[in-house]
């Protein structure tokens, strides 16, 4: 298990987010919903990021600069190098009949790659502001709602829901669609089961999200 050195090929500002592009090299893009540990320059720990898109020869990550690590990642310039470990964890099951993608805020990040894998199914994306909602252009067939409207108010029934977003949103989606697949987020030091930092309650027990998830069945997680 060895992190690969990857070269930054570019970065694009999308609303408040940065779409970081790196040369793929020998790194496999993995299954949508899986994640990678990205070296955060100058910081002691890497940061977990799900893959946003995998165009030929590249990997793209959508990053919200909310702290020192993510800000360092967003500040990377073409030609800079960083260590990347992955793909890690369990992604979305793709054997769904009527997929509906649901995303909230930076939880939009894994949905473009997922949409591609599922043939551009309908999507509902919720954002805090119109500026944040610029990220919706990465997801085809997306309907956008802005606060104070929530994605759960716009979700049509009768779909196989695949969702990623903040915890309250995932909890609300789980109430509506107990069979939904939900991609969760947690602080992680390692991403491969070593640090025990990313504990979440799964089936009534604290388990490591990086090993059990990050995609979990809605009914497995206490809302």
């Amino acid at each position, binding site marked *: *298990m*060895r*992190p690969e050195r990857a070269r930054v090929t570019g970065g694009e500002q999308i609303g408040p987010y940065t779409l970081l592009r790196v040369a793929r090299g020998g790194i496999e893009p993995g299954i949508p919903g899986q994640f990678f*540990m990205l*070296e955060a320059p100058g*910081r*002691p*720990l*890497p940061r977990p990021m799900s893959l946003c898109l995998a165009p030929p020869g590249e990997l793209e990550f959508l990053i919200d600069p909310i*702290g020192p*690590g993510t800000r360092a990642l967003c500040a990377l310039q073409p030609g800079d190098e960083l*260590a990347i*470990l992955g793909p890690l964890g369990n992604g979305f099951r793709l054997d769904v009949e009527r997929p509906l993608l649901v995303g909230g805020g930076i939880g939009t990040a894994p949905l473009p790659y997922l949409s591609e894998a599922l043939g551009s199914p309908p999507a509902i994306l919720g954002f805090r502001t119109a500026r944040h909602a610029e990220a919706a252009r990465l997801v085809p067939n997306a309907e956008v709602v802005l606060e104070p409207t929530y994605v759960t108010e716009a979700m049509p029934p009768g779909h196989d829901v695949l969702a990623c977003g903040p915890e309250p949103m995932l909890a609300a989606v789980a109430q509506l669609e107990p069979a939904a697949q939900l991609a969760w987020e*947690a*602080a*992680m*030091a*390692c991403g*491969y*089961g*070593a*640090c*025990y*930092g*990313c*504990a*979440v309650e799964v089936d009534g*027990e*604290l388990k490591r999200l990086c*090993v059990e998830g990050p995609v979990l069945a809605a009914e497995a997680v206490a809302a």
Partner: protein
Amino acid sequence: MILNASGCLDALTAPAVARSLDAFVTKTVTPLPREGNAPPRIAEVEQGMLNSIGLANPGIDRFLSQTLPRLGELGVPVWVSVGGFTVADYADLCDRLDDRPEVEAIELNVSCPNVDDVPGSVGEIVAAARAATRKPLYTKLSPATADIAEVALAAQRAGTDGLSLVNTILGLALDNHTLKPRLSRGAGGLSGAALKPIALAAVYACYAATGLPIVGMGGIASGRDAIEIVAAGAASVALGTILFSDPDAPGRIRAELASEMAALAVGEADNVIGLAHAKTTAASETAAAAAALSVQ
């Protein structure tokens, strides 16, 4: 010899990383299963991280029946870290490990900063463990004590075979916006680069006081760090926080350490152990020679 620090690697989810070590040290096993503390239980800080995992583990029964047989199949020597809440807990845990061929050594975790119950004195714990097992015993000490050499001597008198130095030391990080603790438990164990000088001081003092074999750990992230803790007195080196960002660290640090040794030109690796204590060393002689030259 390069090991992992207890709690910093799960050999069953990352067997390749475990096999890159000279011995694998388990996460601390306690008498009963423990879920650990509520999340969030890690936080990055400048020069390191805090954790308050809280000894999450399956308990000794499930460890013996399910985990240990699988660890035994990995092909890497297994050290089992044990932790209790009474002196009798340690004796019982060691007794149950004593006849297990998969176990090469036992590490007594008498220093977890993330649990409330404080067991008896280190000397009592080591003596009870010693009476319960013939396996080599390494006692893992906290640096948060006025005189760590005194504690090490007590462990030595009670029959420990070696020391593991050091465990994490309590630290606190506050949220940027709310100014509330970032960990659910409040404070947590500080590890990473910030711990290195503290670890060096502890190894230096305990080596001088006891001469026991020491597994040195605390912020070791490079071959240079490794050779420094060996020079302070460690016979082996354990990797902790660095494994989180670089699972390839054991191989890398082993290679870097070999380069450091070659540059030092001291011959065998064992010659470096405790080198910092020598009255005159190759390094100081070189520095003295350089100083003499510059004077001329």
